Each structure stands twice: as C-alpha cells, then as structure tokens.
C-alpha cells in the first residue's frame, strides 16, 4: 500500500516493475501536491481512508503469472528512405521511445553491426534499468547505441558505464526519478579513450566533431535510461527542469597532458593499474564554470582554489554531504596548464584535493545558521571526529571526496566543476572496460579511420 502525490503514479508503478512485480501497484488515488507541504490540509486522507483500506484488503493484481516478455519488432514504411526514417522518428516519438532529436533506425542489420564491438553474447543481461526494470541485455544496449548514431567500437564503453551505474550503491533509481536534475557523467581512462575518439581536450564537454564518441555514447546512455528505465519526464521521472543533457557527459582524462609526477585519475584515485581501460561514473547535478588566472604563483594558486571553492560551497551542499563519509561532493576538471601550475608549485593531485578541502572549512556561525539542529546531529553522528559542535566544519569528511581530473586542452583561465547529484548516499563507481579480441578491435578502428579520417592529434 503506497501513499503518493499527484503525477507520481507512473513513478510508483515503475518502482514496482523494477522490483520484479507486474507493471501495477496497489496505490490509492493520487493526493494533491498541496497536501505534502508544511501546514497543509490533511483532510484528503480522511476522505480517502476507504481507498487505503481497499488497497490493503480488496485490491487484486492484473498480472498473475511470472516470466520474461520480449517486445515484438515494429514496421514503418515510406515512399523513399527519407520518408521512412521520418515516419520511424514520428512513431518513436508517439511511443515515447525518443529523446526528441532525430534517431538512426535500429534495424537488425544496424544492430548486428554495432554488436561486432563486443565478444559478449547479445543475450547477456548486464542489468535491470530502474525504475521500470527493462532488461539491459547487450543487444538492448546495442539498439540504444544504434539509435544514438554510435559505432561498434563504442559498445564496450557503453556496457562498462551501464555496469557501473547499475551497481546498487550508485542509486541510479534515484538519479532516474528525482525531482532534481541528476545525470551520469562518465570519465574514461586508458588507451581506449583516444582509440575511439573520446574527447579529453578542448570542448571535451562537447560538441567537437573530431571526437564524436562521447556525445553518442552519452546519448545512448540517455536512451537506456528513458527506454529501458522508463525515465520519461513528467511521467516516470519527475525532474523539474531537467538538465539539457541529451548526451550526458562522457569525457576522457588528458593522460598525455598530466604533470610529470601525476598518474591517471583511474590509478591515483580509483586504484586501477596504469594503462587499464576504466570508466568512472558519477551522478552530477550541475556543471559550473571556474574562471581562474594561470597558476604561476602561490597567490594565483590561492585565487584558483578560491574560485573552485566558491562552486563547492553552497547551502544545499552544506546540508547534504557533511556526514556522508563515503560520498563525494564533486569533481574539479582542470586543463593541462592549470594542473601543471599546481604541480610546479609542488602539489600532487592529492595535494590539490587537500587544498580544496581545507578551503571548504566553514566557520561554526555559518554552519549553525544554515544547518538545522536535527541535521547537525545527524552529521555529527555520521563522523564525530570531523564534525564537532562549535568548531568549523569542512564540506565533506575526507579530501578524497572532492575529485580532480585533468582535461580541457592546454590553456588556463577556464576550468569546470561537476557538482554532485543532490543527495547524500550517492556513490561514484568505476568499472574496467572489457574489449573484444585485439584483432577484432584493430579491424574496427581501421574501419573507423576509413570512415572518419585519421584521429586528431590536437590537445
């Protein structure tokens, strides 16, 4: 028996489906949104008591048998190929199978072409995508990648990203239903990033035609969340404004541009051996621009740190993350020259994280004014050695919870900050990318070179 507010029935039904029930739920009629606000009139509950009792005593499910069902193919026609594609896009819009931008038709031939990118069987089930619980088989992921305009060599990265965000601790069910605007950001380390043209340089958050992979993998992730997960705005996901992230953010670290003593993010911060192909997925709510002078002196460095911390510290952040020791706050993206500036002044990646963390320490008077007593008690209970009554508090329990990644080209002046998804409890998850046999990958990369021209060598 579930109590819900107006417009949330779809979310509730999907939540049951995601748990393995039929696509239905014993919920009462939706209650008006006003009832769920401070000081509201609760008489709708009294008026609907019989419905609550009905849900507990009389309601019967329509679906009474267990088992797996696979949808049938659909057919579209047209007087020529352009009209058929137009008709296909209209059909997919009517069926809510589209992100609204034009799609490539997922024909059997096209999907089989994409499936050449993996040695896994198409029938391998990777995960269920919540809240709806559509099964993300390798083939289902290839369908979404085909629709997004992807290529075969992108498939292993898409599979690894889906494996990562469907780890229960990531809480992709929250990400795909929240009234907030959380989207997955994927950081790729290892040689595969450059091989398949994921951008680590100028304009890495997109678009950049020389590096189409990130946008298309990211769009496929969006289609996975919508088509398999049921993340349709206003029906199953209640994101109030959304985030204009049709392509989410799939970017690489600029490993060639790392300062001499810095190892790749996947090695330093995530524990993988250097040279391993790894995706790291984080739930992000905002991308902030950070303007900073080149880090050439200690004074300039402090200005740079201040700029980042301006983005890190805001009231909603203060109330959400402090007691969550394993949670992360956000990720500082910095270009080569900025990272190099920190390094020339003697700071490692961990050193930069510590600088940001120390600068986030907030006076007790501010803490007391923005965090209510109940929340303060919860935070102190979460980590009593760091958060002490009457003392200044850092934004998060540990410096490692503020991550640092190098990308964005060779200049300084601008950087970016990816702010966490808006709640404690979210986690960052990394997964190794499982590539197909080398001979197969080499062939795919050669085909890509023929189609797209030689890869760019520009930062």
């Amino acid at each position, binding site marked *: *028996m*579930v*109590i*819900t*507010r107006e417009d*949330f029935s779809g*979310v*509730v039904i999907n*939540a049951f489906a995601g*748990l393995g*029930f*039929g*696509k239905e739920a*014993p919920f009462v009629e939706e209650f008006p949104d006003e*009832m*769920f*606000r401070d000081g*509201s009139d*609760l008489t709708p*509950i*009294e008026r609907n*008591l019989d419905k*609550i*009792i009905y849900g*507990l*005593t009389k309601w019967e*499910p329509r679906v009474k*048998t*267990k*088992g*797996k*069902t*696979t*949808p*049938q*193919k*659909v*057919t*579209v*026609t*047209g*007087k*020529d190929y352009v*009209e*058929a*594609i137009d008709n*296909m896009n209209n059909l*997919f819009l009517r069926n809510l199978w589209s992100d609204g931008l034009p799609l490539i038709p*997922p*024909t059997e031939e096209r999907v089989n072409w994409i499936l050449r990118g993996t040695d896994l069987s198409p029938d391998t089930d990777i995960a269920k*995508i919540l809240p709806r*619980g*559509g*099964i*993300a*088989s390798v083939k*289902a992921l290839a369908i979404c990648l085909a629709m997004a305009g992807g290529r075969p060599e992108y498939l292993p990265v898409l599979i690894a990203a889906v494996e990562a965000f469907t780890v229960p601790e990531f809480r992709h069910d929250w990400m795909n239903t929240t009234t907030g605007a959380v989207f997955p950001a994927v950081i790729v380390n290892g040689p595969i990033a450059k091989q398949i043209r994921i951008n680590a340089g100028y304009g890495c958050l997109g678009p950049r035609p020389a590096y189409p992979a990130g946008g298309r993998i990211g769009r496929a992730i969006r*289609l996975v969340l919508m*088509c*398999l997960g049921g993340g349709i705005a206003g029906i199953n996901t209640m994101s109030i404004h959304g985030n204009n992230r049709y392509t989410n953010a799939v970017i690489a670290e600029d490993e060639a541009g790392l300062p001499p003593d810095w190892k790749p993010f996947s090695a330093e911060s995530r524990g993988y051996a250097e040279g391993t192909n790894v995706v790291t997925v984080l739930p992000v709510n905002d991308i902030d621009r950070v303007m900073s002078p080149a880090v050439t002196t200690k004074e300039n460095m402090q200005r740079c740190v201040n700029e980042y911390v301006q983005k890190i510290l805001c009231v909603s952040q203060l109330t959400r993350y402090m007691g969550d020791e394993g949670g992360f706050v956000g990720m500082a993206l910095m270009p080569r020259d900025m990272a190099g500036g920190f390094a020339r002044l003697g700071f490692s990646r961990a050193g930069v994280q510590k600088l940001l963390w120390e600068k986030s320490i907030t006076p007790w008077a501010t803490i007391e004014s923005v965090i209510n007593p109940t929340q303060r008690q919860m935070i102190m209970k979460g980590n009593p050695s760091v958060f002490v009554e009457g003392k200044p508090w850092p934004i998060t329990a540990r410096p490692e919870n503020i991550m640092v990644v190098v990308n964005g080209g060779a200049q300084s002046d601008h950087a970016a900050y990816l702010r966490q998804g808006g709640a404690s409890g979210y986690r960052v998850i990394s997964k190794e990318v499982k590539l197909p046999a080398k001979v197969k990958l080499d062939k795919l990369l050669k085909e890509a070179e023929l189609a797209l021209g030689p890869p760019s060598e520009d930062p």
Partner: protein
Amino acid sequence: MADVKLELYDPTGAEEVTQSFAPRLADLNGKTIGLLSDGLFQAHRTFPLIQGLLQKRFPKARIIPFNEFGVGRAEMENEQTMARVVEKGCDAVITGNAA
C-alpha cells in the same frame, strides 16, 4: 504504395515478472500493520493521522508507528528495516510519502 519498409527493434527491452503481490488481508482487525516513512513530504504528519484513522476503524489491529523502523529514503528499505518488519510480525505495510 510504399517502396521502403523498415523492420525495427522496439527499444524498451525485455521485462521479467519475478514476484507476485502478497494476497490482500480479509480483515485488518487482528492484523499487524507497519508504517514505513522516508521522512519526506509531511510523512511525520500523515502517518500519525492514518494510524489514528485506521485504529479507530479497526480497534483490534496492531499498528506500528513509523518511528519504530528506520526513517529515510535509504533507511526505509534496507535489510535491517526489512528484518524488523518480519520481527514485528507485520501482515501489511504502508509506505510513503510521495515517491
């Protein structure tokens, strides 16, 4: 007459029903009903109201208040809370609020 025909995959993927809903209760009198709260959207007001209304209608029902279980979005569904629901002998639960 159409000259081009495209056969396309439906991108919504397979679904699997693995669980059945529990049978409904014939009568709430004599039964134990647990209240599970995510602590959001006035749950601290709606649950006591529902508890009072149900108790009045079903005087022999045992209704366990929300604050006897874990409260919060993650806490209401974790294994400890589920174990506590079993330990308390709940025949039914009402969860809320919102989604």
